[in-house]
């Protein structure tokens, strides 16, 4: 295997619960799956820089983000991250457009807003540009937050259930858009999803997390055939014998 694009070897203490993660993934999108409370969101926060491991090393795209042995930890603002959290976390005092423009790199204000508007258009949200989050539906909020993460042109894209709030008819377009974005050159993308269509479309490196540990990992197509693990068996059950 070539040099891994993502490497996490870390021990985390989370107020009683402990996590010990050993994860290595090749280039291409990485999908985290696993039961609620397994630690998927915690892993995204670790990558974003929202929490530090007790001990360990995190490398993404050839850059060392954290190395406790060397005493180094890049702050979140130096990681080039686009993060879509589970609860969207749009900034309530800003319009949809200004939320997206918040992280657009470089240029003056009007250039940044222009690029933000282009992202809203790509997600079919141009008509909502001047709305505050309070006046958006759950699905609209999720798309605006996704646009905000993508507009940052991140080297490290972190998406926590990016289509969970979208209705089924809105998902295919976002799924197709993300299929390209997850494989953007020079980008490491980690996405939490349990949507079978997304897994089949994105063909990610699949990582199963349970109780704070990586219990299975490999190409999606490979793990889809495994019937020995209850979580994977249930996740891929709709495929029947096609997998």
């Amino acid at each position, binding site marked *: 295997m070539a040099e891994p694009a993502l490497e996490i070897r870390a021990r985390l203490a989370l107020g009683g619960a402990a996590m010990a993660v050993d994860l290595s993934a090749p280039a291409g999108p990485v999908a985290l799956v696993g039961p609620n409370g397994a630690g998927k969101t915690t892993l995204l926060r670790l990558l974003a820089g929202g929490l530090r491991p007790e001990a360990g090393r995190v490398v993404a795209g050839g850059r060392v983000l954290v190395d406790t042995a060397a005493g180094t930890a890049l*702050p979140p603002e130096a990681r080039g991250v686009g*993060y879509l959290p*589970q609860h969207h976390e749009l900034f309530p005092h800003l319009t949809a457009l200004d939320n997206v423009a*918040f992280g657009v*790199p470089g240029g003056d204000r009007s250039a940044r807003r222009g690029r933000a508007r282009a992202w809203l258009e790509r997600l079919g949200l141009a008509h909502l540009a001047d709305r505050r989050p309070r006046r958006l539906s759950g699905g609209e909020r999720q798309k605006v937050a996704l646009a*905000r993460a993508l507009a*940052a042109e991140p080297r490290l894209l972190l998406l926590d259930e990016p289509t969970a709030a979208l209705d089924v008819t809105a998902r295919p377009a976002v799924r197709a858009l993300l299929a390209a974005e997850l494989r953007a050159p020079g980008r490491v993308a980690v996405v939490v999803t349990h949507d079978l269509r997304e897994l089949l479309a994105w063909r990610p490196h699949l990582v199963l997390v349970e109780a704070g540990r990586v219990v299975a990992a490999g190409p999606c197509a490979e793990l889809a055939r495994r019937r020995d693990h209850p979580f994977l068996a249930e996740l891929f059950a709709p495929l029947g014998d096609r997998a």
Partner: protein
Amino acid sequence: MSGRRLALLAGLPLLVVLVLPVVGLVAGTGPAELRAALAAPDTRAALGLSLRTTALATALLVAGGTPLAWWLSRGRHPRVVAAVQLPVVLPPAVMGVALLETFGRHGLLGAPLAAAGLSLPFSRAAVVLAQLVVAAPLYVLTAQAAFRGVSEDALLVARTLGRGPLGAWTAVALPAALPGLVGGAALAWARALGEFGATLLFAGNLPGRTRTLPLAIYAAMERDLAEARAVAVLLVAVALALLVGLRLLATREDADG
């Protein structure tokens, strides 16, 4: 009858008891009385003193209370919260005695203050300090609740999008909590404006020096009920103007978009 109506009906007597005295006060005061009170130098001095001291107390409270409220909002600190709540449960008179026992000549900090050439009791600084202490819980606890609405993930998103710790706070946490902060400041200001007991005991009732509007009412009661009534109406007007003004400010910020 619907449940909502029943609730209103059950709460109506309380609402009446709250509103009726203010109506009685305003109805019983004629414009002539009010003009006379406003023309009196004593009342003007008290009004000016009240506005200046409460503005300063509120500004100091916002300056110190905002970081404290933010810190409180980021974790569980029940003992510190209890300490902040103390002025709510203690009678203002007790706060007045406590301030005297702390900052008075024979108080806890009396000697060092005297050595520095400072004497707080019965000064304007004492008026401000008394107002600050009794109004503090209203601002700090309201601000804490407003800051609780700012999630760690929202701050993390702002950080990942290029802001440092302070930048993320000023760009995201502060504006998101602003309506709550303004509301808390309005409540605290109104409470400071009405502060009486602690001021009387710690700062005294010296005309032109420490006699704020509430103390002016108290002093006028001894001479002339009509004058006291007029000053009271004046105080109601100032407090209402403050509450309505700041509320408008907060909702205008909130309404568009």
